[in-house]
């Protein structure tokens, strides 16, 4: 054993030695510490070795033996400070066998190793950090003590693990900055010794591989080693999905789990889920791409039913038929002008008519589109019309040459179009799944073109309290509501509604938005913004809700659905007392007069 061990260490020695010395370590003061340090290093691997010697790991043992001997050799070589050696011999009584081994090595190597001895003075520093614990005892060779300390944790109990632990300990030390600095100052011998340790470590480290080295994990380490034999650690390999939100919301700890007003019933707004009024809308065309319902500022509701446009006065409850188209076409869109005096009517032929409602006469017809006009929007005297061709025209209704702009962006039918209330921006949505946001001052190209939706975009709504906020809702394959900052073009929020979004309306006095749904829900959903909590879902119609519009006072929502009914919902009712005056015009007047009203 002794001879074999001697030979191995020598080899490693030389190699390490040379490389390390090249690094240019700084010499330091010699001292007993150094010796102790060496003793320590030697002993630490050494003792476990002995323990492990009993255990089954033959391979590791051999490695160790080699190191050990090498260390010893070094130690001894330095050991021209003889006193420590003698101490060692005495103190290290427990590992007796090994000790002797070491001694013998020492003697053997003594002559050969001599060259190293001169360097010794510097070792001290390196040694010092390593052995803080051991320094307590005056004996340099307290290494033995050192071991028990570590072992005490759990290593001793489990032989195999004990060894691993030792290595762990050693390694991090030598590895980290402190250790390296120490090393730097150490003598060649010390370096060599340490290196020897490191190298040794590598081998055993392979055993412990499954458990990464860490002092805090000694226990788990040990167990891991034991477990390794008959268990596998399996990882679910597919990468977990990315988090969907563009914003980092990691600061969520400070917020309540759910917004207070959405979660607790006492804070939640009570929303009437029954319709205030139900009217028949026979002949309403079940076509997602049309816009056949609008509520004027003068509190009149216009609805297009096949070839007719009816106007229902909410104040008086009276219904009148405004117009009937020629039999070869149909009404594809209606839109009140801002002052509520005129209604624009888009036809299947592409013709756009403007009617004076009070007089019941057509003021003018505007041609230009050669496909049906599915959506319109007023901005003062400008009427924007979107057609099936994908073109959007701006008409100045005051002048003969009415077409003042052609907005080219969509490649498929335009079905959504909304002016911002200040007229500075226009949003359009089409069957090409695009949302285009236009700056009214430069209509040559859209300011932004958003491709996030995966289906046609009909539902568009500008936020009344934040001019830069636009909500857009996609069709059956998309089902999302996206919220955009139209100044920066950024998407600020998204909701997956679970069904086709057919229209969106912001509340004017709650921080809420209502969406109407097509298949499968056929419902109205009211969402808080910006929390995006669904406050209520109202099963509104028997088939898909096609159109919706808000009353001028913002309290009432009218919905027209494919079940050929027109329903009025008081979903944004103002709190009692708060807005009675405003509400009076629309709601109460209506309530009293509704009785005899039906459309048709």
């Amino acid at each position: 054993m002794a001879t074999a061990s001697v030979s191995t260490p020598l080899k490693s020695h030389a190699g390490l030695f040379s490389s390390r010395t090249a690094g240019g370590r700084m010499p330091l003061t010699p001292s007993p510490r150094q010796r102790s340090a060496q003793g320590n290093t030697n002993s630490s691997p050494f003792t476990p070795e002995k323990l492990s010697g009993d255990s089954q790991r033959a391979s590791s043992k051999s490695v160790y033996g080699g190191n050990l001997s090498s260390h010893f050799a070094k130690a001894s070589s330095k050991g021209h400070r003889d006193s420590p050696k003698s101490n060692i011999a005495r103190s290290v009584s427990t590992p007796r066998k090994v000790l002797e081994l070491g001694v013998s090595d020492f003697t053997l190597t003594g002559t050969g190793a001599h060259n190293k001895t001169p360097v010794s003075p510097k070792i001290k520093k390196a040694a010092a950090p390593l052995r803080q614990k051991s320094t307590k005892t005056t004996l340099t060779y307290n290494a033995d003590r050192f071991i028990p300390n570590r072992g005490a944790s759990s290593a001793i109990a489990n032989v195999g693990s004990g060894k691993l632990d030792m290595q762990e300990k050693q390694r991090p030390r030598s590895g980290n900055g402190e250790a390296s600095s120490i090393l730097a100052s150490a003598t060649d011998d010390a370096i060599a010794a340490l290196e020897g340790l490191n190298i040794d470590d590598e081998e055993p480290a392979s055993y412990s591989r499954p458990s990464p080295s860490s002092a805090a994990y000694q226990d788990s380490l040990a167990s891991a080693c034991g477990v390794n034999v008959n268990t596998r650690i399996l990882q679910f390999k597919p990468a977990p999905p990315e988090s969907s939100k563009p914003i980092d919301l990691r600061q969520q700890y400070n917020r309540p789990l759910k917004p207070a007003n959405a979660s607790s019933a006492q804070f939640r707004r009570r929303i009437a889920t029954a319709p205030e009024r139900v009217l028949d809308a026979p002949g309403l065309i079940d076509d997602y791409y049309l816009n056949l319902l609008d509520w004027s500022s003068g509190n009149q509701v216009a609805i297009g039913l096949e070839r007719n446009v009816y106007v229902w006065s909410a104040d008086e409850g009276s219904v009148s038929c405004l117009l009937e188209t020629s039999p070869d076409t149909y009404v594809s869109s209606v839109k009140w002008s801002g002052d509520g005096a005129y209604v624009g009517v888009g036809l299947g032929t592409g013709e756009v008519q403007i009617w004076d409602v009070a007089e019941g006469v057509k003021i003018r017809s505007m041609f230009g589109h050669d496909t049906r006009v599915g959506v319109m929007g007023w901005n003062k005297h400008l009427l924007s019309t979107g057609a099936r061709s994908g073109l959007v025209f701006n008409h100045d209704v005051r002048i003969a040459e009415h077409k003042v702009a052609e907005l080219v962006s969509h490649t498929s039918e335009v079905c959504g179009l909304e002016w911002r209330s200040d007229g500075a921006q226009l949003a359009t949505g089409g069957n090409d799944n695009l949302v285009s946001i236009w700056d009214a001052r430069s209509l040559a190209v859209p300011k932004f073109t958003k491709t996030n939706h995966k289906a046609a975009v009909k539902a568009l709504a500008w936020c009344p309290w934040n001019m830069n906020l636009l909500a857009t809702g996609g069709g059956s394959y998309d089902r999302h509501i996206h919220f955009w900052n139209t100044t920066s073009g950024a998407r600020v929020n998204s909701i997956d509604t679970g069904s086709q979004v057919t229209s969106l309306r912001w509340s004017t006095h709650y921080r809420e938005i209502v969406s109407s749904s097509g298949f499968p829900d056929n419902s109205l959903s009211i969402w808080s913004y910006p929390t995006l909590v669904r406050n209520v879902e109202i099963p509104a119609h028997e088939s898909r809700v096609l159109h919706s519009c808000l009353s001028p006072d913002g309290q009432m929502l009218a919905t027209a659905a494919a079940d050929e009914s027109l329903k009025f919902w008081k979903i944004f009712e103002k709190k009692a007392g708060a807005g009675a005056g405003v509400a009076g015009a629309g709601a109460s007047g209506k309530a009293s007069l509704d009785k005899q009203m039906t459309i048709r």
Partner: protein
Amino acid sequence: MAAAAPEKDKYKVHKLSLKGSAKLVAEFFQYSIHTILFQRGVYPAEDFTAVKKYGLNMLVSSDDQVRAYIKKIMSQLDKWMVGGKISKLVIVITDKDTGENIERWQFDVQILAKPKSKPSSSSSSSSSKTPKPTTTTSTSTSTNQENTPSDPTAPSPSGTPGVEKTESEIQSEIAAIFRQITASVTFLPQLSGDCTFNVLVYADASSEVPVEWGDSDAKEIVNGERVQLRGFSTASHRVDTLVSYRLQD
């Protein structure tokens, strides 16, 4: 058989068979994953909706992809659980940028030696099945002893099998764990930067491994701090919870 029948009846009263218990544990894992993802902010809070479970409001991701991902994990986990192949489930939270493991939630599963529970299944086909769970039991038990020698919440790894628990007792034990997980947010370091997660399983060497699963290291936290949380036990399983996390420098 006469002797076996009463056994069986008695067992029915407590009604959690090995299979049922495995299911319960697997379900616990599922909610644990959701809860940890929520509490640790791996996904934005808006993605989660509250569901009543264990008498608590459990937050469950409503993101389709996340749900599908967890569902895929759970479908395999269910099989392993029923087969008694699993000794640990580990959820590792990793920093997306550095790839460093930041937090590690470990659920130790031991299958309790429960010879009395066997009769129910033994009436049909006992001989082949019985040995398997028994062997796993022994290994996992020894594992646990090494691993958590000082576990205060696991006073009776051997004692529990004798004591039958009602389902509501088990549920309240589970609820206590979730309360602890929730409360652990207060001492765990705040996660900064984008994080992602991985699910590890310590499985029997003999278990069948589908393609989505591959060998991995333990993803231990280097120089981590460890905190033992509560555990719960059913008639045939005991689950202990341990979180380890990277110390802040």
